[in-house]
Every structure is written in structure tokens, then in C-alpha cells.
């Protein structure tokens, strides 16, 4: 149990404040904010400490027996740290944003309680050391997110919540069954780079194929793979910080992270290729990328367009994993971070437009660049990053994915990438163009000023600063991709450390 306390502390740094917040009376705003920011800050510091330790080569491991032969295992490898640091950083930012966003609205104790539970579950997913632990946190995430989705309490929100639960709980049961089955066959092994199923490949090939499909259904619903994606665009009725968290860090990413774990650390890329599993996954990912983009093109509601864009963008991660070569995996893993930073920026911006000016549709964005230049600038950076313009984050991803496709000998994937980039441009440029170049004749609606009085900046500072921070982050991770501690550098380290593929070289 070396350093297991650190992993537990990371988990409890959000769980503890979360539980405390549940019991806070509504009016204790100061204490609630202190708990929120204290938890988020503590987690950030602890994850940084862990990062340092893992870089030095320390081992972190915690286990607790749950059932005969089956343990709850927390472990920190380079891959889990990628996801853990992403969620720690973005949680901090989203907490600040959410405090600003929900100022003066009712039932904040409930909101922030579940918000913290949600992040604890996400970090738990990141630090899970085996499939069963993963499943436990994955299902807790489902449950903790539902109250956030229905937070507004409108009939539309409750309907979205029901749909969300119907999709996620059903897929959760499929996943549950598959994991129990797999554990019966192979034992409760921990995640192993290169997989741990080699011994079963000859005797149980068909079973392994069926199990892979079941696992992909289980994770695919949260990762919004077509045709399991329908809940995601509807769930965007949730408040903006929730959508941001859902799309960038928590739910969607949990699904994608699960797929990464299964392909790389349960089956292993080689076995997955041998059983013909990656080919199928690749096709599904490609279809999802194109389909999501086309749907995004048709949506006028800004958040809905962003939601469909998520469907498309998250499948880049899956695509990279399914390419199953070192460069493809680098592209996929690095997009886990890049998509998170970029998409959270875009959702924050959409929230700012809606909160400050009451804008929900793209057709209403005309001239918003003059009223809210900083938010619009951030939106532009995010949009261009998604399109993949160098030197922004999205470019780094697409470059590696393209190289990975060539490396895997599948040039048709390049076609998918090009087509999808064109579609990205087609649906992201119109809002940008309207925002900067469009004309607004009427004076703006100002719902925020109407109920909170004039603001010093273009909007409440707690709404503005997170946007600027994440937009700048998106720029920096692209510009300094060559540094060792950039997401790209870290991902290369993972691939070099964990995937001992002989032909690897950058």
C-alpha cells in the first residue's frame, strides 16, 4: 500500500467537501464557496504532488477487499494521471465558473454537493486500477450526474434526465454483465499495459469478441458513439457549467477513457487487432465523427451545436485508439486533453452569452463581438482549435491522427479527417463570423445587469476569468506542445513507458 494515502486523499479532497456541502443551509454562501474552492485547490495541489512522484518513478497503490478475490484498487500510472490532472484543473475552473453562474439562484447546496460527487467519481475513474473499480466509479458518476442534469426542474430537464438515466443505466448493466463475465474468465486482474487476456486468445476467441462488443456498448453510450448518442444533445438542457463538465471532463470522457483502458490495458492493442476488434471500432468512430458534424451543421441552438460537435470530437479519441499504433494512440490520448480544454471554453462562452445577453441561438449572435470582445475572442480560439488550425491544440491532435492512419496503413482515415475538418469549419465559422462581423441594430437585452446590477467587465468576473484561462490554456498547449510537460509530451511519455512497441520512434 505504498503511497495509497495520497490516492485516497485525492478522492476525498472533493468527496469530503461535497458531503459537507449537502448539509449546509442555503444561505451559508461564504462557507460553501470556501469549501468548494478549498476542495478544488487541495485536489489540484495533491494531483501536482502525485504527478511529481510518478515522474520520479514512485509507485502508488491502494487496495481494499470487496469480495472474495476481488479488490477495490486505486493505482496511479501515467495514463491515469493524464485524466486526473485534466479533471483537477478543469474542475477548479468550472467551480469558479459555477459559483458565478449560479449566484443568487436557489438550491445551490444540492447543486454543489452533487457537483463534487461527480468530480470525485471522475477522479476515481482516472485512478481505478482494475475494471471492477472502474465500473464502481463509472456508475457512481451516472448517479451523481443525474441531479445536475435535472437541476433546473423544468419538465424538459426532467425528461432529459429520464432519457439520460435510461441510456446510461441500461448500458451500465450491459457493462456490469460483461465485466463480471470477463472477471470470471480472466480473474480480477489490474490494468496491464499490453493487456492481460493473451492466455485466453486461443481458447475463447469468440467469447472475447462478444465481450468486447458488450464493453463497447457499455462505454459507448457515455462516449456518445453513434447510434448510442441520442441522450447527449438532449441533456444539454442542464446549466452551462454542468454541460461544460459533462462534455469536457466527466461523463463523455469517462466513456472514452473506458474504451482506452479496455483496448490498451485489458485486451492490448495487439490482441485487439488480431481479433479484428479495432477495425470495427475504427469504422464506428469514423461514422460518428462524420455524423456528429453533419448534425451540428443543422442545429441553430448554440449549445446543441456544441453538443453534436462533442459527439464528433470525442470520437477522435476513439479513432486514435482504434488505429492501435503508437502515433494513433498519441493522437487519441492527447485529444482527451485537447478536446476537454477546447470544449469547456466553448461551453463557458455559450453560457456567458446566455447569462449576460440572453442569447441561445446562433442567429442571434450578430455583433456580439463588440459587446463581449473577450468572450468572443475565447470562443474564436476554441472554434479554430476545434477546426484544427495550427498552432492550436486541435492541430496537434489531427496531425498525429493523420500520421497514425498512415502508419497503420489506412489512408482512408485521412479522408475522414479532412472531411470532418471541413465540416468543423462549416459549423464553427458561422458563429464566429456573425459575432465579429455581424451588425446588431437593437440594443442588447441585459438579463444579468437587470438582476445583478452593472458589472465591471463585459460580464461577471467569475464568468469571464475561467473562459480567458481555458482559452489561453488551449493556445498554450498547442504552442508549447514540444515541451516535456505539455499534454503531448506527457502522452508521448505514456506511450514510451507503457507500450513497449519495438518500432516506436518519434
Amino acid at each position, binding site marked *: 500500500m505504498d503511497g495509497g494515502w495520497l490516492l485516497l486523499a485525492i478522492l476525498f479532497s472533493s468527496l469530503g467537501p461535497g458531503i459537507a456541502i449537502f448539509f449546509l443551509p442555503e444561505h451559508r454562501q461564504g462557507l460553501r464557496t470556501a469549501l468548494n474552492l478549498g476542495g478544488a485547490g487541495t485536489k489540484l495541489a495533491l494531483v501536482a504532488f502525485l504527478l511529481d512522484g510518478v515522474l520520479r518513478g514512485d509507485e502508488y497503490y491502494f487496495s481494499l477487499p470487496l469480495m472474495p478475490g*476481488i479488490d477495490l484498487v486505486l493505482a496511479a500510472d501515467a495514463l491515469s494521471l493524464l485524466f486526473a490532472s485534466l479533471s483537477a484543473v478543469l474542475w477548479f475552473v468550472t467551480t469558479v465558473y459555477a459559483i458565478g453562474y449560479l449566484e443568487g439562484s436557489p438550491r445551490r447546496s444540492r447543486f454543489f454537493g452533487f457537483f463534487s460527487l461527480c468530480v470525485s467519481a471522475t477522479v476515481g475513474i482516472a485512478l481505478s486500477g482494475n475494471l471492477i473499480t472502474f465500473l464502481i466509479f463509472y456508475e457512481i458518476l451516472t448517479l451523481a450526474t443525474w441531479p445536475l442534469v435535472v437541476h433546473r426542474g423544468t419538465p424538459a430537464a426532467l425528461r432529459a*434526465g429520464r432519457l439520460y438515466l435510461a441510456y446510461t443505466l441500461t448500458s451500465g448493466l450491459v457493462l456490469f454483465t460483461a465485466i463480471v463475465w470477463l472477471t470470471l474468465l480472466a480473474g480480477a486482474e489490474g490494468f496491464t499495459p499490453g493487456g492481460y487476456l493473451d492466455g485466453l486468445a486461443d481458447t475463447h476467441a469468440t467469447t472475447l469478441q462478444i465481450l468486447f462488443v458488450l464493453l463497447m456498448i457499455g462505454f459507448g453510450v457515455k462516449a456518445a458513439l453513434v447510434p448510442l448518442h441520442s441522450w447527449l444533445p438532449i441533456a444539454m438542457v442542464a446549466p452551462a457549467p454542468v454541460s461544460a463538465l459533462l462534455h469536457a471532463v466527466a461523463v463523455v470522457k469517462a466513456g472514452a477513457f473506458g474504451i482506452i483502458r479496455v483496448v490498451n490495458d485489458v485486451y492490448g492493442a495487439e490482441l485487439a487487432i488480431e481479433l479484428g476488434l479495432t477495425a470495427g471500432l475504427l469504422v464506428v468512430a469514423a461514422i460518428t465523427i462524420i455524423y456528429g458534424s453533419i448534425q451540428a451543421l443543422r442545429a441553430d441552438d448554440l449549445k446543441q451545436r456544441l453538443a453534436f460537435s462533442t459527439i464528433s470530437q470525442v470520437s477522435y479519441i476513439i479513432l486514435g485508439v482504434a488505429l492501435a499504433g503508437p502515433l494513433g494512440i498519441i493522437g487519441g490520448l492527447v485529444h482527451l486533453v485537447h478536446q476537454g480544454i477546447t470544449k469547456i471554453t466553448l461551453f463557458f462562452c455559450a453560457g456567458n452569452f446566455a447569462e449576460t445577453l440572453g442569447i441561445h441561438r446562433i442567429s442571434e449572435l450578430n455583433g456580439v463581438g463588440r459587446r463581449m470582445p473577450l468572450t468572443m475572442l475565447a470562443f474564436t480560439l476554441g472554434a479554430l482549435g476545434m477546426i484544427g488550425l495550427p498552432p492550436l491544440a486541435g492541430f496537434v491532435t489531427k496531425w498525429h491522427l493523420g500520421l497514425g492512419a498512415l502508419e497503420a496503413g489506412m489512408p482512408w482515415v485521412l479522408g475522414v479527417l479532412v472531411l470532418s475538418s471541413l465540416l468543423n469549419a462549416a459549423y464553427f465559422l458561422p458563429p464566429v463570423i456573425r459575432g465579429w462581423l455581424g451588425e446588431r441594430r437593437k440594443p442588447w437585452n441585459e438579463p444579468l445587469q437587470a438582476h445583478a446590477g452593472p458589472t465591471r467587465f463585459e460580464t461577471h468576473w467569475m464568468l469571464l476569468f475561467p473562459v480567458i484561462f481555458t482559452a489561453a490554456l488551449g493556445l498554450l498547449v498547442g504552442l508549447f506542445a514540444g515541451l516535456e510537460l505539455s499534454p503531448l509530451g506527457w502522452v508521448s511519455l505514456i506511450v514510451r513507458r507503457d507500450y513497449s512497441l519495438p518500432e516506436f520512434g518519434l
Partner: protein
Amino acid sequence: MSPPGAEWLPAGIAGLVGLSLAVAVLATAWPRQAHRVGLLGALAITAWVLGLSALFLNTGPDPEAAATRVALGGWEAPLGLMLHLDGLSMTLLVLTAVVGLATSLYSLGYVHDRIERRQFWPLWLWLWAGLNMLFLSGDAFNLYITLEVVSLSAVALVAFTGTAAAVSGAVRYLLINILGSLSFLMGVVLLFGEHGVLDLVLLEARTEAGPTERMAAVLMTAGLMLKAALFPLHVWLAPAHGSAPAPVSAVLSGLVVTGSFYLILRLWMGVFAPLATPAFGILVGMLGVAALVWGSLQALRAGRLKSIVAYSTVAQFGYLLVAFPLMLVDPGAWRVVVFFAVVHALAKASVFLAAGTLQHAAGHDRLADLGEVLRARPRTVFALGLAGVSLMGLPFTGGFIAKYLLLEAGLGTVLAGSFIGVLWVLAIAGGGLLAAAYVLRMVAPSFQRGRADAGEAVSPWMDWVPLGLATVAALAGLAGPLTLNTLALTPGAP
């Protein structure tokens, strides 16, 4: 050489029976102070049971050494009465103590009328004593007697508020119980006539798969199924459990039905074990699937909060029936079944207590009009939700661990080549979704936008105990290895 503390076990067992009886008698004799006696008694019994379990576990890991038989008055079987403690009874004693303590604390707030208090506490303490003796009884006749003590006090508890609905519910419950007990007693008589002994251990050694045993098995099992409300003999449960006062519902759904189920399990693992055939197993499993579906559908249609919870008991007990064919393939699965029953009892009792708080606050429990109270009482809704998660079998609760183990056993039968196993797996996995649907019905209104009104004030006990017990049900997820190890201390069981 016996492990340290083993020599105290017989005294501990006899002492537990004595203590439970003494508390019950004292409360009956001194009704004015019944609630004080009850509270002190509940604390004392709980402490005693926990101490006993520590002693018991300490004498492991050899089941033969740990299991203890005490001859009352020094008369050995077949002449005298034997008390019998093993891993199975120890587990259920602890469960009874936990739920019993929570119910007692809750009742301090719930039963505040002075007259009602005098009636409630003695009855409840007799019920508790009956359950403790039921789990400690080692022979068929004694089991019958303790079962009667439990049933009669339960009937009186259903009726004690004296309203017309309560009395008619109680009368129906009484008739069902008498029918069940008679059927059980006839089976006992048949066995005694054939073998001349009542002690379960002696009986087990003498029984074979003969016609008398078959007849006795049918009679006794049918009687107990009636009492445990196992499908299709469940129709009485929802009206009785739904109309009883909340702490009584919690005890009925959490402990009393579990007690009857305990007896079924005990008999089929011992005396009737030779009679279980695969075809019989499939029949029971099918009944379980039907119970799961039917109970859940009724819970989805019911208009009253407590009816939903009561039907959920029918559905959840379906799992126990589904597990029967699994036990035939993997005899070790019985421990999973007991763990499931324990976890269910904890969760179900907390759901009933939470429902009682809401009902008390609103003055009714019609789900359609409960929104205002649900919105104003997040703590109670949280308890409802947390225990509900355990009923759904989702992490991180005891329900999840139980579900995992059941699913593992189910998939095990499939991998062993049984086609019907696929049905069991589907039922075990799919039942969770149905549970999620009816739990959501109870919880979702609290998220709806609208007016919030806390309704009538409730005592802090009623506010906090459901949440506490729900937390215990959730944390039972950590108690998996401990429970399974305790159950393994049952001699003769696989």
C-alpha cells in the same frame, strides 16, 4: 484446544435469549415506562449481539468449533430444547440488532401518543425477542413456537393504531399467518411422526427423499412462502405492509419476511436438501422471474408511496427465488443469497422509515400530492435515494456487491453450460433497471420546480434515523468479505 473466549459462547447465547425476554416482559409489566425500557433494552440487546458476534468470529475459522449448541436446562436433544448458533444465525442476529436499534430510535419520535406508546413498545419488544429466538432455535417445534411469537406480535403491531384500515389489514394478515403456521405445523408433525425427533441436526441425519419428507416439505415450504410473501403467495403483503405504521412496516419488510425466508433456507439446506431436483429449481427460478417483473410493475403503477415500497419487497424477494436454481449448480451461492437478503433488509427498512417521515409530514402518502414535502425535505429524500440505489444494485452500496455476486453465480451457471442460466442472468441484471424506474418515481418529484412546504414538524429522530440506516445500507458494500466469512462458519453448509 478451543480458542480464547469460546467457553463464553454458550452463556452469551442463553444470555441473549434471557435478555430479549426480560426486556419484553419488563415493558409489558411496566407499560408507563415502556419506551424507556425499550430504548435501554434496544441498546443493551444491540451491544450484546455485537459482543456475541465478536466472540463468535474469534472462535473461527473452523465452522465446527465456532458453531455452538446449548442444551437448555442441561437436557440434550432429542429430549430437551437446543439453542443453536452458527454463522447463518449470527449474521441474521446482527442484522436484526441493527434494524431493530434503528427502528427503536425512530419510534421514539414516531410513536409519541402516550396510549399508543404503551401498546407499541411491548409488542415490538416481543417481536424482537421472537426473532432472536427464531434465529437461535435448533429444533422444528421450537421454530414453530418462535415463528408464532413473531407472527402474532406482528399482527398486533399492524393493528395497534386502531383505525379501520389498520384493523382490516391486520385481520387479513392474521388469517394468512394462521394458515401459514398451520401448514408449517402439519409438516412438523409429519416429520416427527416418521422420525420421532424434532432437532434439526438429528432430523437431517435421518431424512431421505421419501414420500413423507416430500409431503412435509410441500406443507412447510408453502406455509413459509405464504409468510415470506414469496410469489405467487404475496398478495397479502402490499396492503398489510402499506397500511401499517412506518416503523412496523420497516420491521415487517426488513426482518419478519426475512425471518421466514431464513427458515426456508435453513430447511432446504439441511433436512430437505435431498429433495431438491434441477427441475424443481427451474420452477422456483421461474417464480422468481415472475415476482421480479410483477412486483416491479405493480410498484410502477402504485399511487401511494408506501405501496411502491411494499411491492418492491415482492420484486426484491424474486431475486431470492431466482437464486435457488443457482444454488443447485453452485451450492456455495447460498452465502450470496443471505448477503443479498441482509442488504435488502437494511435498505428496505430505511426506505420505509423515510417514507414514514414523509407521510407524517404531509399527512398522507399519495405520491401525486407529495411534491411539496419532497422538495422541502432533502435529507429524507436523500435517505430514500441512497437506500434506493442499494435496491437498484448500483455502487457503492451493499446492493451492488450482492448483485455482483449473484450475477457472478448466474454467469457461472451459463458458463457451466446451462441454457436457462441466460434467463437468470437477464433477470438479475434487468431487475435493477425496473428498480431504478420505481425509485426514480419516488425521488424525481423533489427535483421538479415548484413550491416547497415541509408540512408538519417531525422529531429529529425521524429526520436523521432513515439517513443513518441508509448510510449503513450503503456502507454494507464494505462488509462483503466479513459477512461471507461469518456465513462460512456454518457447519454442514457447502
